[in-house]
């Protein structure tokens, strides 16, 4: 592992917590839950109680191009129920969970609000970080500056298609951790962990000591364990949201508990 870059600022809340956990030998587990879906706040609490290290909260958008059928369906149902970004953030403010909360949404909701106003809204709701999957490195400048100013960590994605020269630039600009996209494709459960998941995570851990988490296509405890042999942790989306849709918050808690135990047993 290379030394921490001289140009990176001091780690924020997410990166500090993740570094501490990593040093203690703990694999990081970050579930994704669609904000505004019935029972979502209870699901966040259940996930944290079951051992999540942070929670990614989706703010539903009308055109979620990085999401597969399960998360699309959950988002659409929330939108049909009249859920707005502010309604989700109002509920976030009331959540007392003791782990960092990260917003995942699409850039138009940010752009529409204005980067500074949106960043301030997230920060004042108690959000620690933000993931915008349709905002690649070259377009991320104005948002990243606004987020930095508001004390929010902007997590950038790295994809298996990235040439070698691109990864150091992503790693340099990301905050919190680097989101290592597990496969070529959108969110959703797969029967096996793609070979690209561990390959990209290995490329990233070779060039940075910023925590590397694999997300997209990590679909069960076994795959989470496999990914964490190379990466520092995993983000699990569709498999969590499906359990929320099928079995409610308790099913989410039981699932996260199962994954946590599998990771800790390694």
């Amino acid at each position, binding site marked *: 592992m290379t030394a921490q870059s001289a140009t990176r600022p001091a780690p924020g809340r997410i990166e500090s917590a993740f570094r501490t956990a990593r040093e203690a030998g703990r694999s990081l587990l970050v579930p994704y839950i669609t904000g505004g879906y019935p029972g979502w706040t209870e699901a966040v609490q259940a996930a944290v109680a079951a051992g999540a290290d942070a929670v990614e909260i989706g703010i539903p*958008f009308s*055109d979620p191009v990085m999401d597969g059928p399960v998360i699309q369906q959950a988002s*659409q149902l929330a939108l049909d129920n009249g859920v707005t970004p502010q309604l989700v953030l109002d509920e976030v403010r009331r959540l007392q969970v003791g782990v960092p909360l990260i917003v995942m949404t699409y850039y138009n909701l940010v752009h*529409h609000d204005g980067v500074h106003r949106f960043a301030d809204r997230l920060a004042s709701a108690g959000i620690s970080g933000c993931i915008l999957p349709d905002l690649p490195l*070259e377009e991320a400048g104005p948002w990243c500056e606004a987020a930095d100013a508001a004390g929010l960590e902007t997590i950038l994605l790295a994809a298996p*298609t990235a040439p070698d020269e691109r990864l150091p630039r992503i790693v340099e600009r990301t905050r919190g951790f680097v989101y290592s996209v597990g496969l070529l*494709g*959108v969110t959703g459960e797969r029967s096996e962990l793609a070979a690209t998941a561990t390959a990209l995570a290995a490329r990233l851990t070779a060039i940075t000591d910023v925590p590397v988490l694999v997300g997209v296509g990590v679909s069960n405890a076994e795959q989470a364990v496999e990914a964490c042999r190379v990466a520092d942790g995993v983000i699990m989306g569709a498999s969590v949201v499906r359990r929320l849709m099928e079995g409610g918050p308790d099913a989410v808690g039981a699932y996260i508990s199962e994954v946590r135990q599998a990771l800790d047993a390694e």
Partner: protein
Amino acid sequence: MTTLENQIPPTATDFESEQDSMVVPGADGRFGEFGGRFVPETLVPACHELEAGFNEAWADPEFRAELHKVLAEYAGRPSMLTQCHNLSAQLGIRLILKREDLNHTGSHKINNVLGQVLLAKRMGKTRIVAETGAGQHGVASATAAALLGLECKVYMGAVDVERQALNVFRMKLLGAEVEAVHSGSRTLKDAVNEAMRDWVATVGDTHYCLGSVMGPHPYPFMVRQFHRVIGSEARTQCREIYGGDPDVVAACVGGGSNAIGIFSGFIDTKARLIGVEPEGGAAVGRAQPGVVHGMRTYLMQDEYGQVEEAHSVSAGLDYPGVGPEHSYLASIGRAEYPTVNDAEVLEAFVLMARSEGIIPALECAHSLAWIVREAPHIQGQTVLMNLSGRGDKDVAQVMDILK
């Protein structure tokens, strides 16, 4: 004009003059403050590869010659001009049509598709995906894929699949797979989302054959370049046949590819450039910038930034955004973007059929509807209208409405 060489403008001079009149976006893909490349990280390298591949091909006389040859021998270019004598007399203007409806597959879409599929093949891709609204771009894509031997999958909103059943069958007949998209508003915008999701997963062997001057850079630029042939031909034809440039150039705007194609021939003239939007799909009319489908552009959205659904009588214009170059042309005041309503459009559709014996696509009836409304204010002027598609596909739908 007997030889092919005489019919097709020489490629080298084409390229020189193009650089003078229209914006050539830099690495950031911007037309003024519009455009860009807002795509998932997975697709960024693919966009870079496409940009390099296109620039290299476009500068290669061999590629340009190959494209010109297929446009001439297969698509039927150049398309002719038709003066509408009856409508001209009725309206008190000189109305001239650029007959893109006479191209193979019945619309201007073939220009772009032949360009992109030739390029995809040159770049070693074996499969294309496409989105379609009315079905014209889907049919054109399926056609080009059949001609050039590529696999083709077309995404089409479930609502549009119902509205345009005949085009769905056409695509299947041409060997394409058609998938109905049931997410979101189940129209064109959702078909774009689904095509992008496919491309994210298949980017190694697949080219996304986007159907309009929209999406992430280089699409808005590349698709415009492939449609410039409309404007270049029309400019030469107007000067040869009518001895000058038109006073007004009108075209319908959904994403805006046929409009940018014909505008590009007259951007440096005194002609008024008119892009006609449907009332229920007035992205430029509302003038609110947003980011969707890879680009920053004027976008119909609610107070929170959720993208709204477009509604009009024509599936091909039911798009809540618009190509970023149109947002730019509107923002600098070079082009105007009025709206017309469905009732005006249906009247215009019937008017053209009865007066000229030409059944226009419902999309193009939007342009005529504006011309009819504007006619009292532009008496004696020459109006060039891009008749970008034929109306056969719309006849069943109009029959139901007029019953």
